[in-house]
């Protein structure tokens, strides 16, 4: 028996509507319609057996100029582990400075895929003005902190 299934290709912004003709267990792809390129077939086959998505999120930074660093999985992860992986990221932190491309975790949840920073976060400089010190007076923003912090 051939089962028909419609999915959306999410590889690129073209967003091809794929029509899959697979066997009854929906594991083997017999025929594919609607893919504008070869990546569509690859995506469709993967979607049937091992759907994966890239994880993108943020991780807390200590001593950084900004409180968070954006991160991604180095390769797409099995879709079903994403919620647990993001929950786990909430519990970890990294130390500034962070370089773009730096490995934050060597292996996400035993999937054998690394978590990497997608941006750089510098260390906070001592003489930077904390935001709380900016005081609003008669509609004009000025800095009340003339003293150099140590």
């Amino acid at each position: 028996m051939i089962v028909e299934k419609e999915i959306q290709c999410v590889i690129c912004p073209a967003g091809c509507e794929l029509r899959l003709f697979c066997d009854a267990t929906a594991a083997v792809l017999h025929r594919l319609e609607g893919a504008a390129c070869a990546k569509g077939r690859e995506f469709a086959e993967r979607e049937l057996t091992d759907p994966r998505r890239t994880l993108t999120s943020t991780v807390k930074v200590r001593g950084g100029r900004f409180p968070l660093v954006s991160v991604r999985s180095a390769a797409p992860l099995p879709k079903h582990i994403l919620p647990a992986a993001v929950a786990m990221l909430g519990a970890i932190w990294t130390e500034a400075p962070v370089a773009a491309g730096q490995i934050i975790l060597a292996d996400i949840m035993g999937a054998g895929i690394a978590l990497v920073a997608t941006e750089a976060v510098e260390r906070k400089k001592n003489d930077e003005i904390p935001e709380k010190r900016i005081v609003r007076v008669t509609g004009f923003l000025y800095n009340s902190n003339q003293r150099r912090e140590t």
Partner: protein
Amino acid sequence: MAFYRGNEMSEEKILRPDLAIIGGGPAGLAAAAAARSAGAERVLVLEREPLAGGILNQCVHDGFGLVRFGENLTGPEYAARFLQAALAAGVEIRPQTMALELTAQKQLWILGPRGYVRVEAGAVILATGCRERTRGAIQIPGSRPAGVFTAGAAQYYLNRQNLMIGRRVLILGSGDIGLIMARRLTLEGARVLAVVEKMPYAGGLTRNISQCLEDYDIPLYLNHTVTKIEGRQRVESVTVVRLDEAGRAVSGAERVYDCDTVILSVGLIPENELALQAGVELSPVTGGAMVGDDLQTNIPGLFACGNALHVHDLVDYVSAEGETAARNAVTFIRAENRAAARPLIPVRPAAGLRYVMPFFVRPGARPLISLRVKEPLGRRRIVVKAGGRILAERKFPRLAPAKMERLTLREPVPLAATLLEVMIYDS
């Protein structure tokens, strides 16, 4: 302004770059590097935030750069490529610097860490991006509790400030940032109850409907809207109603959602306060400048690009447009071609098109045409004509308002042309 003007604090009172670019986001950074390679000596980028990169810095998700680099980059990764290219090209970027005033003579006043400075540039590019429509813009009745955010503000709190914004969330509007936030909030432990869209079709790209909503079983209700937000301190409930074909609320089709947060993803508007000050003619349809094919506004030497010109679907095209603006700005600086070079031939979109960019073309030019349709259409052929002559033609398997389509003229605009028509045909 008078207050600032009398308050000269800076050692440098006047800057004279060849090109000043207002906004260091994807459009501005791409424009800056392109202007240097086109031969502009001194290129100055004015950026309001501490870091250049614009909205990309808070777009931590991927999907950027597929068109330009054939790679699937996150927002910060995409921004870093252009930032590095601009710095390597010798562009001067001034962060934490706000452009306060722009005159019809392209004089610019800026305020930043080095004080209050006047900028007199050979040419100016507006790359100021866009803003989100707010609750005020769409006038949702009800009380005014905390917990109503635009999608971009929510994104900033979560992705940059490490602040969670709510637990039970309803999203109004199906724009791309709203869809991205539905996924992000779900993964961060919030419950996204529904995405509610007034129109019979989604505002965002189909791939985002799939990977942000369907992947997480978040329902999308088309032809529905929010009629009331209630709560004293914080949002407590939201009333959603189904709309009939004429867009009127169907009585008895209301549903009340118990939630603490409402996210609005109800459209973007090009940011053009400076353009208005300078007297730039804006289009009521796009909200951006009425530019010619060289992306020059009605003010000679003042150019516009990126989301400040019209809201794009993909950042890849924003960067490309920035580069086009930069090359034309450099040509302007070189030739000092004042008003003479204004494009003369108007572009007329067919009835089914929401708009066509540019608004004017110069005879002999071979511009890129961008357009958006008003509503989803099936198989169509889009044709660009001048007189009886077909200058460009492309078939589309389907057209959607969320997608910006582009086509390049295969031959230049005839010198004798008086009108450029962009037509849609059933194919």
